């Protein structure tokens, strides 16, 4: 299936312009943003949550949130990264209310345009086998690393997402860093 001009939501404006239009209550602009960002959101969320219904509800929540508070975007950075920030937190919220954690472990992603100290350490290792090191981490450690460092959640949010105590998140994060350091040294 390829995009044609007749497709719903096709729009020449860029993301920031669309977001500005949403501020004025332009539903077509929301549709255009949805068409651009819903697909990758679905995939990225699906790697973090095994329940497809929950993933779709989260995508709904995300665009409803974009519609209600488009002004929360500060006008800097990728709109996609901003949307992801909303989506991952909505997922955390949904999981908090859900009966049992339906999280699939060990998904590593990277989202924050602003690099954290940890991320710089990770990215600084250009010649080491970073991919191999990440893949060799145990699923529990990788999941924690992903949620905090790469998805940009706080340890508290990560704890909710993964259904483990906050203290466990911190200790696992430390162990993950140690293991990476050893492997890449």
């Amino acid at each position, binding site marked *: 299936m390829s*995009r044609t001009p007749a497709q719903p939501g096709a729009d020449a404006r860029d993301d920031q312009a669309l977001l500005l239009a949403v501020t004025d209550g332009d539903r077509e602009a929301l549709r255009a943003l949805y068409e651009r960002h*819903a697909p990758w959101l679905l*995939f990225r969320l699906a790697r973090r949550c095994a329940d497809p219904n929950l993933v779709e509800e989260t995508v709904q929540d995300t665009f409803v949130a974009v519609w209600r508070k488009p002004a929360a975007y500060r006008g800097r950075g990728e709109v996609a990264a901003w949307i992801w920030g909303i989506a991952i937190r909505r997922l955390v919220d949904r999981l908090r209310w859900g009966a049992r954690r339906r999280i699939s472990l060990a998904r590593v992603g990277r989202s924050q345009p602003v690099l954290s100290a940890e991320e710089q350490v990770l990215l600084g290792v250009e010649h080491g086998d970073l991919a191999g090191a990440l893949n060799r981490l145990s699923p529990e450690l990788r999941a924690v690393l*992903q949620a905090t460092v790469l998805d940009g959640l706080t340890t508290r949010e990560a704890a909710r997402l993964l259904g483990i105590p906050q203290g466990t998140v911190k200790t696992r994060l430390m162990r993950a860093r140690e293991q990476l350091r050893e492997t890449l040294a």
Partner: protein
Amino acid sequence: MSWHADPALMETYSLGVLDEAHASSIEAHLLRCEPCRTSIARHVGRARLDGLWEAIDERVEPVRTGFVERLLARSGVPDHVARVLAATPSLRLSWFAAVAVALAFATGAARGGRFGLLLFLLVAPLIPLAGVAVAYGPGVDPTYEVGLAAPMRSYRLLMIRALAVLTASTALIGMAATALPHLDWTAAAWLLPALGLSTANLALSSYWSPPRVTVSVVAAWATAVVLSERLSSTPFAAFRAVPQLVFGVIAAASLLVLMRRREAFDARRRI
């Protein structure tokens, strides 16, 4: 961006079977690359996207709001409370119009002499009473069934509406009272009876069926006013100091009963 994700890699990713390190680099790339976001969109079915959009579209549908609701929302009342209030039958413009007409006649009659004024004082307290009586309940409230299923307790809903109706109708009567022939104590003599009757009506409604209670209270009030006027030598005997005090006590007692009987209102939720 000079580099784009490999289509095969993208497909593996969309199936959820790509290893973590590669997946994370694809995810990072997608945040910054519009063409790759477009290309991964091919792996989502049109039907799924459309269905999901319909759900979103429904949730962002702008709701039609009426005059009263907009006014309330603008004066700082939270959206959901404004909606609940705007759906109150006795807070509609048509209700206010009816009240205004009734008050116009009553004040007109009051200018005609002592019995006219008595008529005004008799009718005025019945306006908030009637307003509160039709503010909530099966048959009169268009959102009654919705309210039964709502997470807000019936009691709270009833109190919010009763308060709003009391405030609104008191203001209307107060305005009408300024058109009375003599701006002496009689211009405010309806206030405590209005309060006492409305709260008593609510309190008694927690014991017996609301329509029956309302009819009884109205009948009792009218009888008391007419009888006291015929039997007593002082004019407006039902509105002098002692009766006023009695109405104050009735209002206070009724409020106490209302607070203690809150379960009775919530129990009516059984359909």
